[in-house]
């Protein structure tokens, strides 16, 4: 009996923090989402129960729907390209090469840096009219101006920066998995006369399938939470007018959530985060089913 109690004592610090700051907040967010701040000078004291009003307003909020579209567009831009670039890096690095560690460190380094800071660096490169990328583009007669201040190029430019930043993560996963592929498979294929491309296509790629799926799943959940890259590089802008309504061409749901939080609309912000949670859960269930069927 004493032994059992000891186990609980060991668990206690972790468990307490987990309950207060990770488990309880999920229910608390739900509770908050059913309330509305009445008085902005007394935010917490003036929360009033409003039932599903926040959710009803959310359904009618074009800015919210737009932000979901932007988030989806962002994930479509980053995930496939990001995975391909990671795979490209890993496929060139896989051979037993002198300098393997050096290159792996080099490619991986940006991944561990702060998204916000990396965004600041990129705003310099993209800045108009003197940023180096802006000027390189105008040298080849692509006078787009500030890539981040053009509604058409702003989101792809952020996506490009983030693909380069995060490529090391996927690469490292690919490398770890590639090391586990039995060399005899390649030997057999070589005896059968398969060229390097065929070996890559028919041996390497199939073995990497679980990693590719993993990157798709976590990548999407990651973009649902994307905030800092846009806060840092575009602030949600530039604005565009569609059907008489001003919309923000890079305002993802994460950024919109922050904007509502900033204006102290806590109940409404909580309802957005709860919808994000529901989307994530639905997607995770779908994705894990899909994985189980495919693997």
């Amino acid at each position, binding site marked *: 009996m004493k032994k059992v109690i000891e186990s609980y004592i*060991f668990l206690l610090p972790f*468990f307490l923090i987990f309950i207060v*700051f990770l488990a*309880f907040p999920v229910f608390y967010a739900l509770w908050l989402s059913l309330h509305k701040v009445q008085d902005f000078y007394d935010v917490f004291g003036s929360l009033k129960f409003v039932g599903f009003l926040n959710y009803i307003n959310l359904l009618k909020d074009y800015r919210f729907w737009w932000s979901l579209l932007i988030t989806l567009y962002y994930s479509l831009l980053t995930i496939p390209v990001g995975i391909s670039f990671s795979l490209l890096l890993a496929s060139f690095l896989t051979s037993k090469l002198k300098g393997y560690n050096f290159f792996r460190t080099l490619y991986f380094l940006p991944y561990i840096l702060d998204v916000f800071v990396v965004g600041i660096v990129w705003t310099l490169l993209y800045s108009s009219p003197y940023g180096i990328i802006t000027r390189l583009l105008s040298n080849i007669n692509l006078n787009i101006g500030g890539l981040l201040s053009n509604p058409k190029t702003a989101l792809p430019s952020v996506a490009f920066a983030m693909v380069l930043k995060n490529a090391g993560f996927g690469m490292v996963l690919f490398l770890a998995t590639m090391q586990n592929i039995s060399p005899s498979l390649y030997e057999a294929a070589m005896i059968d006369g398969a060229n390097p491309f065929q070996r890559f296509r028919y041996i390497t790629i199939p073995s990497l399938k679980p990693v590719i799926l993993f990157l798709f799943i976590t990548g999407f959940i990651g973009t649902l*939470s994307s905030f800092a890259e846009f806060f*840092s590089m575009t602030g949600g802008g530039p604005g565009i007018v569609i059907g008489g309504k001003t919309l923000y061409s890079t305002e993802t749901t994460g950024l919109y*959530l922050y904007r509502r939080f900033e204006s102290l609309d806590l109940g409404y*912000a909580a309802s957005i*985060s709860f919808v994000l949670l529901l989307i994530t859960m639905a997607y995770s269930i779908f994705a894990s089913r899909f994985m189980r069927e495919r693997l």
Partner: protein
Amino acid sequence: MKRFLLYIILTIFGLIVIFPFLWMLYTSFKPEHKALSLTISFRDFTIENFVKIIRNYSFGRYFLNSLIVSTLSGFFATLFAALAAYPLARKSFFLKRELTFLFLSSMMIPGLMYMIPQYVIVSKLGWINTYKGLIIPHLANVFGMFLLMQYYKTLPDAIFEAAQIDGASDLRIFLRIVIPLSLPVLLTCFLLTFQFHWNNFLWQLIVTTDEKMYTVPVGLAMFRSAHEEMFALKMAASTLSIIPISILFIVAQRYFIEGITSGAVKG
């Protein structure tokens, strides 16, 4: 010849990936009026930007805050994770499976979900603008706990049986056997937590309103909105902010990469 070509390709990739940071470093050593000049010249290199950043702005203070928050969080999160991982991996007790499942399922929740409720909780506790508010909400590192738990499961039973026959208490076993045997994994857990907090921009942004409590990224954000056009200074501040974490990574990259891959590939 083939090998040479491979190195060229790898170097080009390396340059593409690392170029923004080289350019940041280069710009940070240039005088402000030449910050945007594209002519590469090292003639008027100056450390004036760095001096200004530290002397005229409180980046020293922000650094200290980031260091305190990241180190304390790393230490306690790792300690709590190890304490929880040991019984979950090696003991049997009532509700063990349910607890493990509960912890595991929380990893599915997007981080952004927590912003609002955690902020309200921390405000109600009066922890805005305190180290407590920056640190305590993130002390349950579920990912690190699972990393340690997986490792503790692989330890041979014989060690624990021998210790139990000798009548050693759980605390003694933990301190004398579990901790020393898992130092590399503990280090991985510490480093990943440290890195998480060094980069935990959004939380630090909303929990600190007093300049004395700003961390490096928050300080950088405030600096940026006040000096939109001072590129050289911004780059100097950015350079300073990524130096510690880059050095830590380069020195201990094995632990970082092992932690990140083992968590993902097994999970």
